[in-house]
């Protein structure tokens, strides 16, 4: 008898949030039999339910910014990403965003409208016209409604609580994936003509993050093992003002944007009670650096953060409560419930936390990766946002690239026949996954290993990096790789947390090492990669992607040209 179950689909989509649901819907629309597989619960898992209200799209006369156009959106994205994103993909995002918003509306996502029926659009930094459509009930509303649309379609089979921990390959292409069904404690091999990676980013590799800790680089690790190219893994976006303490609400976003003069009119204070910013407040990315430096200089509070002190804000306490209570209702309430503190009455400490990943799997404008049979979209994909991302673009990307990945994957499945699984590969992968049950001397706990990796990332792969810190991080990861072999888990079949932790630790270590080496490779500073030992931006030599490619000997790091279509950089820009 086989020690695994086999399932078959035309298209397998890995993930259960914004990008995955959209890709699955598109493939279903094209008549494919689809399996959508999520390691937790679709519609509730991933970063999408945590997101705020903002999804940007040029709605033209259907929105309040009537003069806005896809061309303008394109230009803003290119400028915001400092000419570092591939413009063939930026075009896909900018020119299909509006249609995708209408799809979302059709699937039941609720938007705010003006009295005369136009999409409400709020302004965000870097947008020529206010472009952020306002989702009522925020990301939660988006992900649940997309998951509902998925569940309405009879040709999509949903697998929840299934962790994909390996991609399967045969004859030079991806032919499916291997999953652990956590509820049953069983291995499930899924054979698929095409596979879409829509499993989010790797923010959860850092112990201090505002994302769910589940997002540990599954896309990067799975794709890298299968042989697909990765890109710009060193571009790690932080958010400047996330709560550091109390523990129970650590990582909650306190919205920096609402400190603006026109809103709360506030500032951030060091332990001496001094404001750290002048007037006007710096843009978000500059603010992160100021906060980080101030903390490094020893001017943080007892928990290592600066004070988000709204008792001193220009608008007054009552107004601040109204602003934060309305704009960030979920966070405002959560802090109160989980800590017992009101975020306005009590100055709470904040610091920069891991927020979004600009890098990921390398794709083209059809969302094809470098491996036949493998497609990627959403935060998992890497090379189009540039070295910085505008607020409200991430959710838009999940829909635009998600739909395209679903379409391309469907076309690929239609034109190809099943290659079949490589039985020897499958057996060896299952054998490796089972070895965690074996008795070992000096056994290591999977939860300790996981925590160690996350803390090393926060300590060394911070908004400011240097060769010294990155090398220290690399050495720690090598030690953890040794520990990985010593993990021993309990002999429990169903819901064995340690088993998942061990399989995830493999994923985490793969991804961490690739990020650290990418950061060491890029000897200059730009966007969300700031090297203290190479502080200058060097457009002449370095305005190129960092490409990571698997070779016989390991991984090779090289530069790859950025694709310019409508807007090549002018000299000196």
């Amino acid at each position, binding site marked *: 008898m086989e020690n695994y179950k086999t399932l078959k689909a035309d298209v397998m989509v890995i993930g259960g949030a914004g990008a995955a649901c959209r890709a699955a819907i598109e493939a279903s629309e094209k008549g494919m039999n689809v399996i959508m597989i999520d390691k937790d619960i679709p519609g509730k898992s991933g970063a999408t339910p945590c997101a705020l209200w903002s999804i940007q799209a040029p709605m033209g006369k259907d929105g309040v910014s009537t003069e806005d156009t896809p061309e303008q959106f394109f230009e803003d994205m290119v400028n915001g990403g400092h000419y570092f994103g591939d413009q063939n993909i930026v075009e896909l995002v900018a020119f299909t965003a509006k249609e995708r918003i209408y799809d979302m509306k059709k699937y039941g996502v609720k938007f705010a409208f003006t009295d005369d029926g136009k999409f409400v659009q709020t302004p965000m930094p870097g947008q020529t016209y206010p472009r952020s459509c306002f989702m009522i009930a925020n990301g939660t509303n988006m992900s649940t409604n997309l998951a509902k649309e998925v569940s309405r379609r009879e040709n999509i089979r949903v697998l929840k609580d299934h962790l994909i921990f390996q991609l399967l390959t045969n004859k030079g292409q991806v032919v499916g994936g291997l999953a652990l069904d956590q509820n049953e404690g069983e291995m499930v091999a899924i054979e698929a003509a095409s596979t879409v990676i829509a499993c989010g980013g790797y923010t959860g590799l850092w112990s201090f993050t505002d994302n*769910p800790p589940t997002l540990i680089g599954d896309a990067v690790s799975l794709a890298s093992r299968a042989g697909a190219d990765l890109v710009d893994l060193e571009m790690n976006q932080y958010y400047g003002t996330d709560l550091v303490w109390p523990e129970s609400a650590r990582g909650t976003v306190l919205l920096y944007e609402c400190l603006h003069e026109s809103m709360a009119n506030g500032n951030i204070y060091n332990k001496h009670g001094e404001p750290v910013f002048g007037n006007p407040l710096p843009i978000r990315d500059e603010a992160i650096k100021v906060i980080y430096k101030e903390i490094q200089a020893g001017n943080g509070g007892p928990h290592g953060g600066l004070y988000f002190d709204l008792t001193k804000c220009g608008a007054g306490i009552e107004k601040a409560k109204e602003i934060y209570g309305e704009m960030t209702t979920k966070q405002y309430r*959560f802090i109160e419930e*989980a800590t017992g503190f009101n975020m306005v009455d009590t100055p709470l400490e904040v610091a920069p936390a891991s927020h979004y990943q600009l890098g990921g799997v390398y794709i083209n404008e059809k969302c094809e990766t470098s491996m036949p049979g493998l497609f990627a979209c959403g935060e998992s994909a890497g090379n189009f946002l540039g070295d910085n991302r505008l607020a409200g673009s991430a959710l838009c990307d999940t829909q635009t690239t998600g739909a395209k990945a679903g379409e391309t994957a469907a076309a690929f499945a239609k034109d190809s026949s099943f290659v079949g699984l490589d039985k020897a590969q499958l057996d060896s992968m299952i054998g490796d996954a089972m070895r965690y049950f074996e008795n070992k001397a000096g056994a290591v706990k999977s939860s300790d290993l996981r925590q160690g990796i996350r803390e090393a990332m926060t300590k060394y792969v911070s908004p400011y990096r240097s060769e010294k810190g990155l090398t220290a991080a690399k050495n720690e990861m090598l030690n953890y790789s040794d520990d990985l072999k010593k993990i021993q888990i309990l002999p429990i079949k169903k819901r064995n947390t340690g088993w998942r932790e061990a399989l995830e630790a493999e994923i985490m270590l793969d991804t961490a090492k690739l990020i650290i080496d990418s950061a060491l490779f890029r000897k200059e500073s730009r966007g969300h990669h700031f090297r203290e030992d190479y502080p200058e931006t060097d457009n002449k030599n370095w305005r190129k992607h960092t490409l990571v490619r698997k070779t016989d000997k390991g991984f090779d790091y090289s530069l790859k040209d950025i694709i310019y279509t409508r807007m090549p950089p002018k000299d000196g820009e």
Partner: protein
Amino acid sequence: MAITKVKVFRYYPDVDAAPYYQTYEVEMDENLTVLFILKKIYSEMDQTLAFRENLCYKGGCLQCLMTINGAVAKACSTLIKPGEEVLVEPVFKSPVVRDLVVDFGTTVTTSCGEFTLERGTVVTKK
């Protein structure tokens, strides 16, 4: 520092003849949510305890729903003071997979009928 007594529902349907309760004495020096207390128990005291821990930790995903002191609540948003006693049980209307992990079968009502996302399997039409 005070000792918080946490009484937890334990049940592995494949192995246990019946559910039982286990009380953990957790040392706490600051207020913690039920979710963090469970994490502490798992990492410091008992690795056999099963609960969903891959969550948002921010009150937004609803994957942490449990029965806490008799009422269904979000474990990440329920604060416990050091020294307090607390009873933690699964959401009883869904089948227990192990301990506090239940299989949330999401039922979705649509214009074409009712669908249930069942345990790790197909979307079925009712």
